[in-house]
């Protein structure tokens, strides 16, 4: 299996006023294609920073990060945006759907951004069917439950066939029942489409569906890695 994500000695330091705050202190990590990986750790351990670096939303202070063969480290903002558009899908804790668009509209927007305007209704319907959202296509987010909104967010993240899905606390705002449904969807996508997923989470149940779990503390990966 080839490594889709290669992170080498990643460091990230935030400048807060006159103080330097290190968020990552030399993280090295590889994520293989088709892997469902959980990253756990207490608040402030650097999980989100690492996710944002993987997604090209941040640039590291030092170190190197390669996504599906493309080096994000030295890339310009425009290049990182391009890589993110083509290769990365995001799922957020707060769903982050566009409230003025329907479920299908949110997916269509992702397609428009990805394909520069092109439309793929078959792919959309396939994803919505897989995530059991066929009868919710024309509903706006406010008309959906939390679990349904997160499934729409997941559908939006995968409709463009990204190389990797980065999920930031995807069950953080859900009750246990909806959490279980959403986690099952992550597993389905990983199993049926070999979708590579990196999920950061506090939730042991969320981590338990993943094949590999990484623990982080104080900006480093704590040994040993725990396999699911």
């Amino acid at each position, binding site marked *: 299996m080839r490594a889709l994500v290669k992170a080498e000695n990643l460091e990230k330091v935030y400048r807060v006023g006159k103080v330097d705050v290190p968020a990552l202190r030399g993280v090295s990590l590889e994520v293989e294609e088709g892997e469902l990986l959980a990253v756990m750790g207490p608040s402030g351990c650097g999980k989100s920073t690492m996710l944002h670096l993987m997604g090209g*939303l941040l640039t590291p202070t030092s170190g190197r990060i390669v996504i599906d063969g493309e080096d994000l480290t030295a890339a310009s903002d425009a290049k990182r*945006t*391009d890589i993110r558009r083509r290769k*990365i899908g995001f799922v957020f804790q707060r769903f*982050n759907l566009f409230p003025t668009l329907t479920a299908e*509209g949110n997916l269509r927007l992702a397609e428009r951004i990805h394909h520069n305007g092109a439309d793929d209704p078959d792919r959309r319907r396939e994803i919505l069917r897989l995530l059991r959202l066929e009868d919710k296509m024309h509903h706006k987010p406010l008309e959906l439950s939390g679990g349904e909104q997160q499934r729409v967010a997941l559908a939006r993240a995968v409709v463009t066939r990204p190389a990797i899905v980065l999920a930031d606390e995807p069950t953080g705002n859900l009750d246990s029942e909806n959490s279980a449904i959403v986690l099952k969807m992550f597993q389905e996508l990983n199993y049926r489409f070999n979708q590579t997923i990196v999920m950061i989470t506090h939730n042991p149940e969320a981590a338990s569906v993943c094949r590999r779990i990484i623990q982080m503390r104080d900006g480093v990966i704590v040994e040993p890695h725990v396999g699911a």
Partner: protein
Amino acid sequence: MDSLVVSNIRQRPLRSAISVAGVALGVTLVMMFTGLARGLSNELQHRSSNVRAEIIFTRPGSIELTSTATNLSTKYVELLKKIDGVADATPVILHFYQDNSGFGFEQLEGVNWNEFAAMNGISLVEGRAPQALDEAVVDETKAKKKHPVGSTLKLLGDKPYRVVGIFRPESGSRVKLTLESMQNALEASDKCTYILVKCKNPADQIAVAKRIDAELPGNKVQFTSDVFTSIEKTVPSLQIFLRVLVVLAAVVSALVVMLAMYTTITERTREIGILKAMGASRGYIVGEIEREALVISAMGLIVGFVFAIGAGALIQRTYGLFFEFGGLWALTAGAIGLAGGAVGALYPAMRAANLDPVEALLHE
């Protein structure tokens, strides 16, 4: 249409309406002021073109835009008739008076009706020529505004004048009294404002004018085409005023759209962060915001045009001001509305495109 642009406009109806109104205001201002200037100018020219005399003989400074002097002796009439090339000459008193319609003032002429009508090809379509000191004739446009034959006009300090006839075509002032009546009212006996001179051969008017100037020096000899000219020539600063107005309208539209888009961006910071996380480029984000601004501007254009045409028609019917909306000015107003909106949205759009995606995603 499940479009981010349309759905955002619909989600904030009051702000969208205010933005549309701001653009519409700029468009309406341009359309109405230019329409009014064109309407008045063309109307004045139309009436002036029916004055068939080629030459005006007067004292220097007698005729200004809104005032006249009655200081020319009528003895010049006979002197002018004797000059080679002159077919006829007739005196006219031109006076401005306050009126409740239009701009608040109107023109009034005192003429020897038979000579004046024969010289300028005017005829009475109803009634008869004025004879008594308290009689007047009006043109058809004036007659339609509740001044038919038999009605009373209040002129020259609220004095009543009975309308005894209606003439056609429109020529010079809309209301004409007898020359004697005007001389009495203005206490200027044997005086007039100017004398209209008809040439035997219109092609010789320049030569005739030179002869008049040579034989009757110290007076002003002009061609009627120069005197009764368009408002733009009479008020050269009008064009400058219109251009300044156009610029102001563009600035108003741009500022309104800028403010609306800036507020929109601030409210939608997290949405912009989501777009960036989804891989939307800076160009895409700028494009979305500009599209929204252009849709609002286009709506403002339509509202502005409709309002300008409606308001123009209403004002024309109520106050008698003439509006004439030109294609070129309509295009200018349209371009201003769209360009103002596009330019106004540019700064907020660039700001949005340069937001830090992580900070934007954390924005409440």
